[in-house]
């Protein structure tokens, strides 16, 4: 399986990464080399093997549905690129 230039542009868009034509060409070669390398996995016999998502089997803990955190909105918004009246500002989404 080898990625085309169109594939690279599609993946970059899915990842929300702007990519120039020159970058896409260079990236294509590198991604294909990495994918060829990880393709070694296909040779492994894994029929019936349960996928392992985590190193240690843990179950999600539950807690009472009560407020546990203080309001730190000002501290968190102090590091935001753009805020106004307690809101994060972004370009207009809905006309």
């Amino acid at each position, binding site marked *: 399986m080898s*990625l085309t230039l169109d*594939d*690279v542009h599609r*993946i*970059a*868009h*899915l*990842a*929300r*990464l*702007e*990519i120039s034509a020159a970058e896409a060409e260079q*990236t294509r070669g*590198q*991604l294909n*080399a*990495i*994918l060829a*390398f*990880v*393709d*070694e*996995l*296909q040779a*492994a016999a*894994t029929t019936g*093997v*349960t*996928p*392992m*998502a*985590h*190193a*240690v089997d*843990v179950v*999600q*803990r539950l*807690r009472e549905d009560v407020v546990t955190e203080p309001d*730190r909105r000002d*501290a*968190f918004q*102090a*590091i*935001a*690129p*753009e805020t106004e009246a307690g809101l*994060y500002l*972004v*370009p*207009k*989404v809905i006309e």
Partner: protein
Amino acid sequence: MLNSSLKQLAAALAAKKVSSVELTTLFLDRIEKYNPSLNAFITVDRDKALAAARAADGKVGAGGTARSPLHGIPLAHKDIFCAQGWRTTCGSKMLANFVAPYDANVVGKINAAGMVMVGKCNMDEFAMGSSNETSFFGPVKNPWDTARVPGGSSGGSAAAVAARLVPAATGTDTGGSIRQPAALCGLTGLKPTYGVVSRYGMIAFASSLDQGGPMAKSAEDCALLLNAMAGFDARDSTSLERPAEDYTRELDKPLTGFRIGLPKEFFGAGMDDGVRAAVDAALAEYRQLGATTVEVSLPNSSLSVPAYYVIAPAEASSNLARFDGVRYGHRAAEYTDLIEMYEKSRAEGFGAEVKRRILIGTYVLSHGYYDAYYLKAQQVRRLIAADFAAAFTQCDVILGPTTPSVAFKFGEKSADPVQMYLSDIYTIAVNLAGLPGMSIPCGFDQNLPVGLQIVGPWFAEARMLGVAHRYQQATDWHTRLPAGLEAAR
């Protein structure tokens, strides 16, 4: 003082032979002198450090409360740990101006132990790299040879301790990022069992693999640091609820009758002769100490690097989606709409290796490829973990090389991502299985340090620290210093 163990420093502080302010000043001055050539730190804050040192000195003699065994000792954190009021960059332009609004669990615990934070150590961008060449803040130089890499991603932490700019540092290890730089810089570093050290406030790379741990001059120092770092934290969903342990408890346990497993796959082709000679000599030393060696097999270990480069990028692509230029981090100056703002902010904020991994991760998780790559890699991960479980029925710990070669030169592997990935060939399987792993210095090749890797069963940190400590009582590799730093004697 520069070469003293943490225990010796603590004793000197307790006896008031030195104050924390004096000790902290000593190391700050050394950072000022050597860091311009090593680039081991991204941020150093003399005022904050001295204020913490004064506070530590003030608590001495105030009476009543028991002092932590680390009270007043300076330390540096890898710049992946959020520290309130400190710039926390993760080695990235994306977070170049990010001042953390809260403390990571590890930072809070180290502070509570009375340690004095002097600064934040350089690292590969978002911990993605094995050479420190991917840092937005420039590469870290190896104190043993400044033409060579210190390893990565915790390369700044490793170089800082190796050059005696701090007595100890924290690191994180997703595929070898504590052990590989510890090996390349001649240090002792420990990656605990997954879930032992909280990931809260530790900027996420691959959440099912990331684990913080200590980097120091000896196993004894690492044990004391791990005592301060480990413990359950409800704010980390995979933190393990286990009784507290004293990781120093097996330091002096004799190795008589101890069984050391040698995976035949780790001693095959691919390892440099000089590394092999140093590891073989270490094994001979262990036999002298009363241990026996037995060959074991990890038949799927050759698949660990390919499995890792599916799983880690997949998790990274998801974790790094949070950097959108909205709530924190870099935002592009010009854009016409929301999507363009995301795409430009991320393209400008991330470096080449981070982008490659985000793209690989996005691809392997995308529709039509998930089963072939991600699910397959998770199945192989299960096989790799089962190999270790089988091996540990025959032995108490596994030993082998930490890396196939000593520190390589800048630029030697940076043009070929796959070659760079293979420098972690002996360490990655340990993360996939969630096991604890260590590296300790065991000799030299081409005048550069060689690392011996110790892998234990789940939760065998105390045992491994004992295995390392017995060796360090019988040898002096861990006390050797880089030639340019003779002044440290």
